[in-house]
């Protein structure tokens, strides 16, 4: 967004009559960013928000001003549209950024817990957008449930366990090197739920961890609760799709590439039946919903 700021100055020189920025404009731009900082606010439900969005789209100097305000606050603008509103997210070192240690206390000392919380967020996204085209399709609304996410991960874990057994691998980790334990085992051995004294969800169980993730995402304006079935069902919002597509997915993929893992899929539609039967059998045996 910084290039926008640099751009505005020469243009201001070129066309001083139209582009003189008044304090009122700056206030409006900041107001728009402030609306963007209320992620649960729907543009359609606030007239002023809607008008500012329209102005952003129709008045390029104003748009650059709003972008500059956002950038100055340490925000990244993902999209500005009537459906998503002013979709902003925190830059890496911004005061608005969420840190894992603030999110869940145990995670700072326990790598296993840290992983479980991270994986819960990844799994929610993966189940909300099961196919690449769902993530690409702006009109797509994903639906997830807490128990569904847990079962989804457990099933993937079970496949890995079965595969390891078939190959005669001993996946029990060495006692003195917990960091070398296969990641799926961490999820598989954590209990799915548990009885508590006050009938709330057991925070340390996997459904508790997923429940925390979806509740947090709901507060971020990324999910909307639609019902109580299956531990709570949720619907995705446009902002979530943008966040996952433009920020989280690529960041995680970059990290994966840095670790030397290059996941190869055929790029198009991994959920569709494969063309030739050999491939089909491979997928069926691997038991995974996607090419692995």
């Amino acid at each position, binding site marked *: 967004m910084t290039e926008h700021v640099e751009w505005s100055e020469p243009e201001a020189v070129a066309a001083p009559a139209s582009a003189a920025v008044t304090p009122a404009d700056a206030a409006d731009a900041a107001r728009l960013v402030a609306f963007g*900082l209320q992620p649960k606010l729907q543009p359609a*439900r606030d007239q002023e928000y809607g008008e500012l969005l329209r102005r952003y789209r129709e008045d390029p100097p104003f748009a650059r001003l709003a972008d500059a305000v956002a950038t100055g606050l340490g925000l990244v603008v993902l999209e500005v549209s009537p459906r998503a509103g002013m979709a902003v*997210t*925190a830059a*890496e070192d911004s005061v608005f*950024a*969420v840190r894992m240690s603030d999110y869940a206390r145990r995670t700072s000392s326990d790598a296993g817990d*840290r*992983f479980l*919380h*991270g*994986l819960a*967020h*990844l799994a929610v*996204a*993966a189940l909300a*957008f*099961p*196919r*690449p*085209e769902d993530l*690409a399709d702006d009109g797509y*609304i994903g639906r997830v449930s807490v128990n569904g996410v*847990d079962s989804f991960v457990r*099933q993937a874990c079970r496949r*890995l366990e079965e595969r390891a057994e078939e190959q*005669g691998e*001993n996946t*029990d980790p*060495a*006692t*003195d090197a*917990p*960091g070398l334990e*296969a*990641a799926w085992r961490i999820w598989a051995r954590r*209990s*799915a739920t548990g009885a508590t004294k006050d009938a709330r969800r057991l925070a*340390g169980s996997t*459904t508790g961890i997923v429940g925390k993730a979806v509740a947090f995402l709901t507060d*971020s*304006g*990324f999910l909307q609760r639609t019902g*109580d079935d299956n531990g709570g069902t949720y619907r995705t919002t446009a902002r979530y799709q943008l966040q996952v*597509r433009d*920020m*989280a997915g690529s*960041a995680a993929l*970059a990290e994966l590439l840095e*670790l030397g893992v290059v*996941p190869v899929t055929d*790029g*198009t539609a*991994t959920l569709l*039946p494969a063309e030739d*039967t050999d491939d089909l059998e491979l997928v*069926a045996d691997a038991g995974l*919903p*996607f090419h*692995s």
Partner: protein
Amino acid sequence: MPEGFAWVWGRAWGCRERCAAAHLSLAASRFAAWARPVSERWARTRPGIRGPPRCDPRPRLPLPRGAPPPFGSLSERGPNLCTVTSPASTDSVPPQLSAGPRPAPGPAADEGLARRLRALACTAPLHDLDARKANLAGEYSVYGMAEIALAAIDLVTLNMDFDTGADHEQIVARLVPRIAAQAPQRPAAEHERVARWVLENLINVGSVDRGFRAVYGTFAPDGTYVRRDYDFKLIEEVPGYGGGVYLRTTDEAVNVLVGALDTDVTSAQIAAEVKLEVLISRGRLADAQLAAEQARYRTVQYSETLRKALDATRRNVRAVDWLHAVPDMIAEALDHVADRYRHENAILTNIRKARDESEEPEHKRRAAELVDIVKDCIRRHTQLQSRLLEAGPLFRAEQDRQAFATPAAESGIDLYGHLVAPVLPMPLEQAVRVTDAFFARGTGFRTRASVRVGDLVDLLLTPPVEREHLGAEMPEPDLIATPDDSRFSEEQLAAATELLDLPADAPRRLSGLLAEARRQDPELPYLVALLAVHAASPPVGTAYRQGEEKLLFAVDDGTELDDAEFGGADLIVGTALLDAVGMAADRS
């Protein structure tokens, strides 16, 4: 259930006890090698014998290291096995052990040992209960905790339903009579407390994972000694309908309970049945009851397998092998249910006769119990059968829902294929970097609340708001108009119907129909294929009731479909003429 479950050693479980992982592995290895015959002998002669105090690092049965152990066919390997898992072998290796006459056993021999160690570990939480009951406030030594624990596992297994598990309170209530029988003079509240304590310890409520961990040692392929963690659960808590928490026994627990059940379910079931019939015909009811109970455990295991497959299908059709594995399993299970139903009814008649004709009250009682068990078996089979019948339609519905979706041309990141699938098999320390990266960018932002002292004072001095009797006002729901997402238009349906309106005497191949449809509209073949697949199971009953004159049907004659977009059988699609007049006469 085995009556005297007597061998007991120090506690080595969970995160709660620091003292003893090594202790278990030492004791375990010795037991694996030769303790079974001894313990069985003890069980017969001295039931209720107690193990060593908790942190005593010596095994209960002292044996000079290196001396040939006295019992068992495995005694040959005894000394080596001891050193394999003894903590001493890594800390300070006595020379005669590492450089002994025999080299360290290879990975293959080790694998069997590891498996036995793990099986052995599953029983340890039960022994452990008896070892720890002394620590409870109050005098609890009258209770046989291992016995209660086995009974609890038993109850949970038998009360597990197809969909949910067993109810926590119900299990406690059913455990209490047995506990009361152990100590009738004690107050009922104490009995319940014991029941809860046992159940909580089987779940291992105190640990984060709510499970158990045992440490054992193996040799890696390169000959190095590796100590490994084995994590397992006996009773796990699963989410049920309406947010409730239910109990299910794990496979490990069923193995502890029924013995080595690690066999082919069907063949084990058949063996148990044959045994049962023979036993009944010979009038050995006590043994017959045992066999019937074992048959019931296997039935439960069978439905569990099916439940897991169906759950997986509901989530993702392609995660389950519906081409071979599941149809085979369903066919097998249906045969099996039919077979079992016949057998059990025959058995039931037999036992009823035994019950009514028997003079001996003990025989009569056993026969009556057996009748109950067999009835329960029949009930479970009927339940399994209804699930089996639903499996096919469920698959087809999910197939429609998941596979006939629009193929979109765009693609982006495939979250599962690119991220979840590669991350799960990675070692934790690497995987956590990827999930951290996702978390950092995928959670959005938080506007932090900053507190001013002035506000804080105001806030603290504000009297609490009176709660409205009716609660807070309901927020207006956000309604979003969902776009019309019909896959096919009306015109396409009309075109497909016209195409499939075949003369009764000239059925056609699906391949031909698809080719013709493709010439009209590239989307049309999908609809034609869908209709043809539906016609493979034509709604005959509906047609009969409504007096239709013709019905579209499709038959698979084994010819493979050779098509760029579709796979499967090249169905023969045709129209069947129905005798509407005859059917009308039939109906009236």
